């Protein structure tokens, strides 16, 4: 993978800038992104893989492959799935160090706080935290 996390963030910012300030298009675009995400195998949709969100269910599972973190996730709502797909696009198959060292500036830049709102952002923040915790766990595992 040649692109850095920040390269991809800039790419996302560019894509969203095409939508302008239009809430409707933004939401439809996010849902479209969600629709494109491959569904998670049913066996991973367990109680322990659930990330507590506000109104939607999110399942997250990971694996460490060749020193890199592989994220797989799903949600029962398309919007949430779309938001997760952005995180996965940034962080999937990155080293724990890259993930932990990254600053997610794209969230503010694409006006996502406006879309996800203060209530829903709790679920989104929980998702980011959980992904970082996995990365942290893997880093410790790799250091041993």
């Amino acid at each position, binding site marked *: 993978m040649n692109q850095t996390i920040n390269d991809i963030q800039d790419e996302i910012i560019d894509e969203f800038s095409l939508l302008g300030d*239009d*809430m*409707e298009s*933004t*939401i*439809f675009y996010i*849902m479209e992104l969600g629709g494109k995400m491959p569904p998670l195998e049913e066996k991973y949709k367990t109680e322990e893989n659930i990330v507590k969100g506000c*109104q*939607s*269910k999110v399942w997250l599972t990971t694996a460490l492959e060749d020193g890199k973190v592989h994220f797989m996730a799903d949600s*029962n*709502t*398309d*919007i*949430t799935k779309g938001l997760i797909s952005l995180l996965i696009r940034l962080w999937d198959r990155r080293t724990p160090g890259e993930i932990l060292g990254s600053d997610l500036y794209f969230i503010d830049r694409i006006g996502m706080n406006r*879309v996800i709102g203060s209530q829903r952002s709790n679920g989104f923040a929980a998702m980011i935290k959980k992904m970082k915790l996995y990365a942290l766990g893997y880093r410790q595992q790799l250091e041993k």
Partner: protein
Amino acid sequence: MQDTTTSNAPSIDITAVRARFPVLHQQVNGYPLVYFDNAATTQKPQQVIDALTRYYNDYNANIHRGIHTLAEHATADFEATRKAVQAFIHAREAEEIIFTSGTTGGINLVAQTYGRTFLKKGDEVIISTMEHHSNIVPWQLVCEQTGAVLKVIPITTSGELILDEYKKLLSDKTRLVSVVYASNALGTVNPVNTVIRLAHEAGAKVLIDAAQAVVHCPVDVQEMDCDFLVFSGHKLYGPTGMGILYGKRELLEAMPPYQGGGEMISEVTFARTTFNELPYKFEAGTPNIGDVIAMKRALEFVSNLGKPAIAAHEAQLLERITAGLQDIPGIRIIGTAPHKIGVVSFVVEGLHHFDLGMMLDAKGIAIRTGHHCTQPLMDFLGIEGTNRASFAVYNTPEEVDYFLDTVGQIVRKRKK
């Protein structure tokens, strides 16, 4: 059962009504706001906002303790609201009106004073399947504290109480029945008069959660003969952070103070000579003066329009939206009781309520999505949550049509 609608109720000039609600006249995400989240909170008419501003601009003062002019003015207005509430729900005495923080505050007050004092091990408290968490958790807590047992009235899949099952639950062990008058999640109007009568025959007291009903349904506490009744100001076109607990005097007298405010009375001799111990025993600390004062304007707003006229208008909207939703393939209405307030809950096949809610918001439409703080009800119905549209007097048939068009478009687009 009392009827919420009166066929010959005078019609309301909705345009004139809307003009009194500043918040309605705005664009949201580029579309005119359609506010269908009234079961969560209603918007406030200008006179309520003005009363709040006037209080803070002209006569903000702490009440009951001061003898100065501002305190007298504030106290008089504060107590005038108590009288207005008394008239609004037809309580016998103004002292039976306790100001609380809201419906939840009122239920907790009763659970922790009446419940904690009079419930003992093996006693039973009855609630129903369609209760809001606010009318479940306070009883679970007091049952844990006292060893009393919580019993639940089952409902039908259309969202109605099964009265035969309720009768079976009632016994000489039943101390208290606490049920909702109108369901926030389904809109069902419960036959509370029957619920109350049956409970009394079994020797139990009854609390009615009127959070939703108070603005749509007739509430006459003497005629209903309920022992307690609770509601919030903010669902009744009034301010947030204030609510009402009505209780029969003899019960309120028998209950201990809630928050250690009882001793305050003896210190305030000026107040004591003027007022009885009730209701102040339950209003420890500085109350929510401004909001209580402004609440009087909200009650006047409702009374001037007339509850039967408001209910008739909302019933028309309910009929329109129900018929329209039934015409959209893949939509299932949740809560089909024959007697409902202006609330419609529905689910869309293959479209999560979260997604629909967000898409509607993008079109300027505000609805509520989720479990509506009624998780046991959602579990019973086997659903995670619903989309809920709920009406107030300022909503129009045109808004309903725009809503139906928008939902129809979204659903059809999804099907492609």
